[in-house]
């Protein structure tokens, strides 16, 4: 029981008549890296946002380190939010702030870092994702997509979080840059010893990052197993998805 870092139990969420999550359950052990795969619109992002408290689930239970945070409003989450790091799909860098302030944002908000110290940490984190000090004073709009993703990764790990969420970390990148990002994610999370939850539909990325892969379909986790066993899952939904076949049990809403 105690070794579970993050548990989701029977989580439901509807938007109007659209039932996005229909009882999703997932347990993640400390230090484990779980990747959720699934098609667009199957509720991957909603699941992540429920854990972060950006969306309130209708029903279910979400616990972090054994403590129930399901219906905890955002402003009472301070004790939990600093355990979390999040890499957003589009990067979500603050475009009014220079790169280093973006990376150091979480540190500066905690008030126990001076701007000088925060700057030094930001530079160190930028180095760890392969960016030099010269980008520190630039603004996000001046960087390429791949560089923005790296800065975003640096921001997600800057506060040394215990749990890191990655929302489609490789979407919109060329295959080589995608692999660079995958390597950085693996390296950064190993260094921190962090527990990670990634959502993606990029199988190359999933195979590289994951200890365990879980497949979400129709608002539920329908399969979970070790990343090595994904080829022989024995689940026809998983088979169809990882081989990218148009025909199979998964019907796309066209």
């Amino acid at each position, binding site marked *: 029981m105690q070794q579970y870092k993050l548990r989701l139990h029977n989580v439901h969420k509807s938007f109007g008549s659209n039932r996005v999550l229909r009882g999703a359950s997932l347990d993640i052990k400390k230090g484990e890296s779980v990747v959720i795969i699934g098609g667009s619109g199957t509720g991957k992002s909603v699941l992540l*946002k429920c854990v972060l408290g950006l969306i309130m689930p209708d029903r279910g239970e979400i616990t972090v380190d054994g403590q129930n945070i399901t219906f905890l409003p955002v402003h009472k989450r301070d004790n939990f939010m600093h355990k979390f*790091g999040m890499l957003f799909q589009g990067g979500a860098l603050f475009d009014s702030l220079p790169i280093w302030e973006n990376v150091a944002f979480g540190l500066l908000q905690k*008030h126990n870092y001076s701007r000088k110290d925060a700057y030094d940490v930001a530079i160190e984190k930028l180095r760890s994702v392969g960016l030099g000090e010269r980008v520190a004073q630039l603004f996000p709009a001046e960087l390429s997509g791949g560089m923005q993703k790296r800065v975003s990764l640096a921001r997600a790990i800057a506060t040394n979080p215990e749990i890191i969420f990655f929302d489609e970390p490789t979407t919109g990148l060329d295959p080589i840059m995608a692999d660079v990002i995958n390597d950085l994610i693996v390296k950064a999370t190993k260094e921190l010893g962090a527990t990670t939850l990634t959502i993606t539909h990029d199988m190359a990325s999933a195979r590289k990052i994951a200890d365990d892969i879980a497949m979400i379909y129709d608002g539920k986790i329908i399969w979970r197993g070790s990343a090595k066993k994904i080829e022989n899952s024995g689940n026809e939904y998983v088979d169809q998805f990882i081989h990218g076949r148009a025909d199979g049990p998964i019907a796309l809403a066209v």
Partner: protein
Amino acid sequence: MITTVLKPVRTIGKTTLNFLAAVGRLSSFAGKGIYHCVVPPIYWRLLFRQLIQIGYYSLPVVGLTALFTGMVLALQSYTGFSRFNAEGAVATVVVLSMTRELAPVLAGLMVAGRIGASIAAEIGTMRVTEQIDALTTLSTNPYKYLIAPRLIAGVITLPMLVLVGDVIGVFGGYIVGVYTLGFGPENYLMNTWEYLEAIDVISGLIKAAVFGFLVTLMGCYNGFNSGRGAQGVGRATTNAVVSSSILILVFNFILTRMFFS
């Protein structure tokens, strides 16, 4: 038969409910915004940036508007008053109209176009690109970080802008009065001072503070609840400008009733 009769009633009911829901959402948003204006911590750096953005950079627009309004007021009231030999009242009309009515309302409307739109577009884009969610995940309250500095800056700077507008507007009237209409400079300034009371200026400044709150509130509210994509941000921007302009005109009436009746 019954359904045909009830249809208009149902439409009225639905519209009323939607309207009340919108008012409720706006009020709760405003309440949260004000709460975070008074409860520390306050982001001084951001507040300072907004003061410059909303106040200082609006000076040229507000100044030009006030200058030409003052000049036109002098011209128009002169042609009107000369029909019954009351030209002497021109200076008084200019100063009272400017301080009580035109400087606050016109400055409010200009700032609604300039600031309301830019706030809605900026916060709307932040919503669409998940930057507001990112703030939350970095343990930062978006109301405190984005909304409060703008509301405070709006309430502080608009009265200052209006005070500057008052002076420039009177100066515009003075230019036209002295150089076109042939008033004596001392005479014009004396007439300006003589009938001016403190309440005329103060009521205008209070109006300005309320308008500053309304403009920044509507900009923030529409941006914060912006729809998806470029279209959503576009709609948020339009709504911010239209709704704050209308609210300014409505509250102008309400405040005038309160002060002068």
